[in-house]
């Protein structure tokens, strides 16, 4: 029984590691300029914790194998180093990991959150609501028209509550259901929620940020691969949460201008 348990634990430990080592299921490949920092951090953590995981499970298994069902003839032994040794070990191993991961990790975090967006970052506004994202581009004047919550109406597709008859700035705003961005151009994403808590998660872009009703938050990122990627909501927002999606298309600058003109025509 004990030996079986030992073997089982080892099989489980190694078995659990296989899909990770073999990269069976992976997140969409990174297409952002900052993503590699996160990926590196991830793989570092994976290596360090993976080793700890395997070693500790195997030790558990070996000890069970060796010391189970020993009779009175065997004397109780004491682990060399004793408890103090283990405490020191824990501080050394975990402490070093904490420093390695914690301190190095802040670098990547700072890259994403502490560095302000560049001066010529392209502003795009995103509004989350049950259960869709809508995007707004400022248009030629580069200014977003004011939002009138009382005018928000999905029935008339006035998702942002714009008053195009009175607000000059709103007249040329371009509202879209899909987010298209030019490649290698920094995007400054201005986020607000129309109703509830939502979240803006683009796995391929390695960005995730909650929408907090009443707060205007922002993100900035740069895409470096042309393609069409998914934007999903990761904050439970109601029955349609699972289907709260949008698409993020990274286009060449020319295609992007073409697309923007098309959308402008549709307004």
């Amino acid at each position, binding site marked *: 029984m*004990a030996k079986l348990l030992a073997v089982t*634990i080892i099989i489980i430990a190694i078995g*659990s590691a296989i*899909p990770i080592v073999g990269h*069976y*299921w992976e*997140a*969409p490949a990174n297409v952002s300029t900052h993503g590699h920092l996160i990926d590196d951090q991830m793989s570092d953590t994976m290596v360090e*914790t993976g080793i700890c*995981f395997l070693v500790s*499970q195997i*030790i558990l298994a070996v*000890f*069970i194998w060796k*010391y189970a*069902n*020993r009779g*009175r003839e065997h004397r*109780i*032994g*004491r682990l060399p180093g*004793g*408890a*103090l040794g*283990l*405490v020191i*070990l*824990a*501080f050394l*191993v*975990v*402490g070093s990991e*904490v420093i390695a991961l*914690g301190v190095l*990790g*802040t670098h*990547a*975090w700072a890259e994403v959150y502490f560095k302000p967006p560049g001066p010529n970052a392209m502003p795009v506004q995103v509004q989350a609501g049950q259960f869709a994202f809508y995007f707004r581009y400022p248009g030629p004047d580069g200014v977003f028209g004011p939002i009138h*919550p009382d005018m*928000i109406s999905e029935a008339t597709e006035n998702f942002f509550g714009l008053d195009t008859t009175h607000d000059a700035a709103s007249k040329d705003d371009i509202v879209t259901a899909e987010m298209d961005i030019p490649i290698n151009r920094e995007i400054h994403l201005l986020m607000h929620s*129309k*109703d*509830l*808590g939502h979240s803006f998660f683009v*796995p391929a872009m*390695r960005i*995730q*940020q*909650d929408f907090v*009703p*009443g*707060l205007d938050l922002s993100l900035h990122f740069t895409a470096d691969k042309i393609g069409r990627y998914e934007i999903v909501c*990761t904050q439970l*927002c*109601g*029955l*349609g*949460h*699972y*289907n709260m999606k949008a698409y993020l298309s990274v286009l060449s600058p020319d295609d992007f201008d073409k697309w923007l003109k098309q959308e402008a025509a549709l307004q």
Partner: protein
Amino acid sequence: MHNMPADPTLHHAPPQGFIRKYIFSIDHKVIGKQYYALGLVAVVTGMVLSWIMRVHLGWTNARIPGVGFFTPAGAPGGLMTPELYLQIMTMHATLMVFFVLTVAPFAAYGNFFLPIQVGAEDMPFPHINMMSFWVTLVAFCVLVSSFFVGDGPTLAGWTSYAPLSAVGAAAGPGQGTGQVLWAVSIAIFCVGQLLGSLNFIPTTLDLRAKGMTFSRMPYTVWAWFITSLMGLTAFAVLMPACVLLILDHVAGTSFFVASNLVVNDQLVPHAGGSTLLWQHLFWFFGHPEVYIAIVPGMGIVSHVLSTNLRRPLLSYKVVIGSMLTIAFLSYMVYGHHMFVSGMNPVSSLAFSFPTLIITIPATIIVLIWLGSIYKSRLRINSASLFALGFISMFISGGISGFFLAQPTIDIMLHATYFVVGHFHLVMAVAAIFGIFAGTYFWFPKMFGRMLDERLGKIHFWLTFVGAYCIFMPFHYLGFAANVRRYQAFVDDYTVHLIPVHRFITIAALATGAAQFIFLYNIIHSRFWGKPAPENPWEATSLEWTIPSPPPFDNFGGKHPIVTHDAYQYGVDGPDGKDYVMQDAPEGIAPQAPAES
């Protein structure tokens, strides 16, 4: 037995009549059993709910028999609607976290064994103790009732994030009555647990038998004591939070609802509330709650393990110290649930470090367990198997915490199935293994009958392997950025993961079914199991010095005098035993564990 002569006056007289004996009982042992029964009912309900969820996730358009019968609106013809999935998910989580993981290891075992292990006749305030159970039961009934009123229970998840939980029915099915009932139920539950702490803490501090110094208390006593301290602070914060939520619902206040929200094309009347306020209040409770669920498990495992290793753990003080450190740190780490919540990124880092550091005491405890197995005389029985399983699970689940403790990585893993896998392993499965270990260890004492060891071992193997089959794949899904709380995976990058979900579903159904072996075992053994001796496991602590089941006043009017610490194993004890009872006569001076 070496005990005091009979005490002239009992703390309170033995109750007469069925009602006072078994229903409105003030006997801590009966109350403990009542809590245990409540936990069983809740865990079975929660498990069935999880089955429904799993089947739906694996085969989204499958018609699930029976579900349509219970909620014709939620599942027309057994075809699950998104709202029903989320409602079931919410109820599964709420039942499991509050009414299983808090009730079973803490309230149930704590009530039964805390007074016995410190050598007391009963809790100091038996009526308050009785109230704490009945209040908790009311909370349970209120929660379950939400299945049957309006358009069902809330779908806001067990975290009930505002404003989804605060703007009312327009936000979705169950957000009206269902959400209010949820908040009411949790508020009541908090009261129940506070009443519990009111008994646990004085029992530990004031009712210890002569000679039962702090350094002689069993690990479990410490665990329950620490847990009740945590519960005291955590539940005292969650309760007002729930009151605020209820007021936002029924009284039109705006604590959590921000201005100018437009829900379903209707402008919400509230204004100026703070969305993050709820998250802060909730997680200030929420993270300690995780340890409220797991610390008693640690205590039970340490207790069961040292008995079955036939040796004391390497260091008593270090284990207790680590538990205290964990409890202390657990209040500084809650922010790691909110890394991407729009909280100031600096505070995210501030929360990240204690979160990483809290793994040090946890690691120390695990290492002590491992190191204590070294050159021990490990006995294999159902209890020790589950204790060892706990260690394995705790390692796996604890280590994945390293990912989530880092804001950087959390960008990718937040709200994915990685989180689900992590907290199920470290909190749910580990805690449940602790409960199982406790049951197989203490059942003889609680009911005076032995459990069937063979069935116990079968139960262990199916549960151990099954749990890994269920929860390890969750981590892979998480790495593939599979978002949690989705009722289906349609036309997106997660479609190729559906086979993994199906595997998990099958594993979940099988493992769940295996739990009925356990149910059969406890029910059958309760009535037809072979009678339990006083001390079947050759254990040393006080609960093993009295008959099984214990008499009404635990020590038959006597008062134990404790002369040894709780873990005198592997020593040359009296008449050839390898252990010394805690209340053995002073004369017996056991040798320290012999070195080899």
